[in-house]
C-alpha cells in the first residue's frame, strides 16, 4: 500500500522513494494452545536473551528488544552486504482470555524464542 502511494506521489515529480516506516521490525510468531496453556514461538535469531523483555497485561503478551550485532567488533572485519536487521523490535500478541498470572518460562532454541504460558496449578 505504501508502495503504491509512493508510486503515485512520484507522479508529482518527487523522485524520493520514501516509505512511511510504520511499526518497527516485527518478528514472526506462532502461537499454540496446549493442555497446559499457551506456547509461543518467536523468530528472534541472533538476539541475546538479555536484550529481550517480556511483559503481560490483561490478555496481551508484549515482547520487545533489540538485535545487536555483536560479531562486528572483530578487527579487520568489514561489511560487504547487510541484510539482517539490527534494530529494536516489538511484538504484541492478543489472547482470547486473560493470561495475567500465568507462569511464564522462556528459552532460546535454534534461534527461536520459546515462551510458555502455563496455567497456574
Amino acid at each position, binding site marked *: *500500500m*505504501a508502495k*503504491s*502511494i*509512493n508510486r*503515485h*506521489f512520484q*507522479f*508529482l*515529480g*518527487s*523522485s*524520493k*522513494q*520514501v*516509505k*512511511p*516506516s510504520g*511499526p*518497527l521490525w516485527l518478528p514472526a510468531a506462532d502461537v499454540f494452545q496446549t493442555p497446559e496453556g499457551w506456547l509461543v514461538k518467536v523468530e528472534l535469531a541472533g538476539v541475546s536473551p538479555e536484550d529481550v523483555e517480556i511483559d503481560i497485561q490483561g490478555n496481551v503478551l*508484549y515482547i*520487545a528488544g*533489540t538485535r*545487536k*550485532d*555483536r560479531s*562486528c*567488533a572483530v578487527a579487520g*572485519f*568489514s*561489511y*560487504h*552486504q*547487510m*541484510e539482517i*536487521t*539490527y*534494530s*529494536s523490535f*516489538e511484538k*504484541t500478541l492478543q489472547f482470547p482470555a486473560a493470561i495475567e498470572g500465568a507462569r511464564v518460562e522462556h528459552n532460546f532454541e535454534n534461534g527461536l524464542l520459546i515462551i510458555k504460558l502455563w496455567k497456574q496449578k
Partner: protein
Amino acid sequence: MAEEKEQNQAAESKAEPFEIPVLPLQNTTLFPETVVPLAVGRQRSMKATETALSTEEKLLGCITTKSDGVTGDEARYDDLYRIGTVVNIKRMMRNEGVMQLIVQGMDRFEVVEWIQDEPFLKARVQIMPKLTRVDDEEIEALKRNIQNLIQQALALLPNVPPEVRMAVMTQNDPVQLAYFLASVLDLGVETEQKMLESGTVDGLLTLTHASLARELEIMQIRSKIATEAQSEMDKSQRDYVLRQQMKAIQKELGEDDTGEKAEAAQLRERLETADLPEDVRKEAERELKRMEALPQSAPDYHVIRTYLEYVLDLPWRKSSPEKLDLNEARKILDEDHYGLEDIKERILESLAVIKLRPDSKSPILLFVGPPGVGKTSLGRSIARALGREFERMSLGGMRDEAELRGHRRTYIGAMPGRIIQALRRVGVNNPVMMLDEIDKLGNDFRGDPASALLEILDPQQNNTFRDNYLDLPFDLSNVFFIATANQLGPISAPLRDRMEIIQLAGYSDLEKLNIARQYLIPRQIKENGLTEEQLEITDDAVNLLTARYTREAGVRQLERTVGNLARKVALKVAESAPPAEGGVDAASADGVVEAKFTITAKEIKDYLGGPRFYPESARDELPAGVATGMAWTEMGGEVLFIEATSLPGGSGLTLTGQLGEVMKESAQAARSYLWSHASEFDIDPEIIKHNGIHVHVPAGAIPKDGPSAGVTMASALASLYTGRKVRSDTAMTGEITLSGLVFPVGGIKEKVLAAHRAGIRRIVLPAQNETDAEEIPEDVRKELEIIPATRVSDVLNAVLEKERSVPEGTSFVLPGAETPRDQGDRLIAKEKEV
C-alpha cells in the same frame, strides 16, 4: 501504548549525549518514521557508513547540507545544519563501488559538538524528544485539513486505487503523516529542515499544511497545463496527419510542386523582377511577408495570394510603344468609317497633341449620337491608329460604385473594379479604354458609379486612382478614355464637363448609300459565303431599303436588312448548285454557280415583302390647324405633326398625346401669344375667347417633351384661327417666347435629315441655329430651302398659305350668333316631329 513505551525506551536509552558517525545529505532531508533508500559513494560518507555498520546498533546520523553546491566530501561543520535524524541501517548492498542503503529514520538529534571531519564526520549528539501526540482540537482540525488537501491532490491523479486513499486517510498519527508528506513532497531543503526542526506538533502541522496547499496549487496548474497541452497536441497532430494526407493526394494529382513554400517563393521571385513603383513594392513586400508567415490553410493566405498576383499582374509601368503617324491615322480612320469628316478632324487634332507632347494628359472624348452611327467602332479605329490596346466596357445598367472602384479586401470574394480588371487584361497602362453607354449608368443606395467616374475621368486626379481592392495609387493618366452615349441629358453636368463632347448625328440617305456600298454590302457578302460576282445590289435598291425598310439614324438596321437579302441569295445559290460528289467543299468550289443575282428596287419586294415604313410626310396636304414639326430622338430625328382643332363654344386648352410639362407650356405660350397679338395676325380675339382648343400630337402612345415644338404649335394654332393652311412641304422647329421671339434648339442636323427623308424641302429654323445648318451634309442641304426665323411672325409668314381655305365662321361660334348647340336642338326637334 506499546509504541509509546518503546519510544520512551529509545529516548531513555540515549538520554545522554553520545558519539555518532554523520552522513551529510545533499538536497534532501531525512525524517523520523520513514524508510528511505540512500546511495553512498563518496569516500568520507562511505567511511562514516562503515563505521556505523561496525557498531552493534547500526546507527548513523544524517544531516542535510545547507547549500546545494557542497558535496558530501567537502562539507565542513559550517555547511551542515545542526539538527538531523538518527537512522538505523536496515540493509546494505555494494554495487559497483557504491553502497546502497535502506535506512529507517528513528529520532531527531542535535549536534552538541563536532568531534572530527576527517576521515569521516563524527559528532557528539543529543537525542531530541519525540513529538508526542497530543489530542488537541486544533491539531485534529489541522490534520483533517491536511487530509482534505491530500484528497484533492489524489483526485487530480487518475487511477489512484481507493486503498491508497484509505491509507492516507486512516493514518492516525499526525506527526507520522506530516513527516511522510514532508519526505515525499519536493519542498526544498529549507522548508524541509524547518519542518524537521519544528518542536511542536501544531507548528509541524501548520508548516505541512501550508506546504501541501502550495503544492496542491502547483499541481492544479500543472494538470491544467498538461490538459491543455494535451488537447493542443491532439489538434496539431490531427492537422499534421491531415496535411500529410493532403500532400499525398496532391502528389497523386501531380500538384505537389505547388506547395505553399513554392508559391511564396514564386511570388517573391516575381516581385523581385517586377518593375514596380517604390511604394507599391513596399506594400507588396509587406503582404508577401505576411503570407509567408501564414499556413496555407489560413483563409487569409489565399486572399493575400490573389492580391499579390493582382498587384504583380498590373502594368504599373508597362506601356505599348507609341507609334503615331498622323497620315497613317487618317488613313485608318478613313478606311474604317465613311464621312464623319468633322469628327475625324477632331480626333486627328487630339492625336496631334499627343504626338507633339507625349507626356501630355490623354484627352477624354465623349461621342454622343444615335445607335448604329459607329461610336464604338470609331473608338476601335482610334486605338488602331494609335497602335494601342483597345478595351471596351459597358457601363449600361451599372449601379454599384464598387463595380468601378472595387471592393475593399476585407470582404469575402472582393475584387478590384472594372477599370483595374481591364488594365490587367490589356497588360499595358496606356490602352484606349472605351466606356460604352455612359448615359445609362444607374445609381441606387449602393452608390453612384457616375461619381466614381468623376475621379477616373479627371486628368488632374486620375494619376493617383485608388482602387478599393488594391488600395494603392494607380496612374490612369496615360489611358485614352473614350466614352459613348446616346444622349447628353442623363449625364451629370460635372461629368460632362470633364469630357470633350463630339456629336455624331445620324447619316443622310446619301451617306447611308455610300456606307452600304463601301462597307455593308461587301461585309455581308463575305459573311454569307458569297462573292461580289454573285450578288449585286443596285443603288436604287439600297435607297429603297433605307427609306422603306429601315428607320434609323445609324446603319445597323440597314446592315441587317442587307444581310437578310444576302442570306436569301445564298439560299438560292446553294439550291441551284449541282449536287457534287464532295459535299460542301465541292459546292463552294468555283464555277459552281455562274448566275449573278442583281437586286434592283423592284425585286426588293420579292425578297423582303412589302415596305415596313412609310415616310412620315405621306400627307400631301394639311388641313387647317395642322403643322409639321421636327423632333429629336435617340434614334435620330423624326417628323411629327401637330393637330389643333376648335371646340366650338367650349373653353380652355386641351392637350393630348403624352406631352411633357415643357411641351404643354409651350402650347399655352403659343395660344397666349396669338391671343395677345390677335389683331396683328388678323384674328378675332372673340373667337379665341369663346372657343376651346384641343391640340393633339401623334403618335399618341409615345411620350414627347421639350420646347422645340413651340413654333409648330404656334403655326398650327394660327392656321386654325385664321383658316389659312400650313404649307405641307415645310417643317419647322424652334422655341418661342411670350414676346414672340424664336429661340435656338438642339439636334438640328438629325431633325433636318429626318425631314429630308420624309420628303420635306422647306425648313424653318431659328436664325441662331443657322450655324448648325452648315453641318448638314452638302447633298442634303442643296435640296433644301432653309428659312431662318427670329420672330414668330417670320415663321407664320413663311409657313401659312396666303389664302383662307376655310370659310370664316365655320368652326367657331361667336356670342350672339347661332350656336351649333342650338342647331343640334333644332335637329332633335325635327326628328321628333317626324
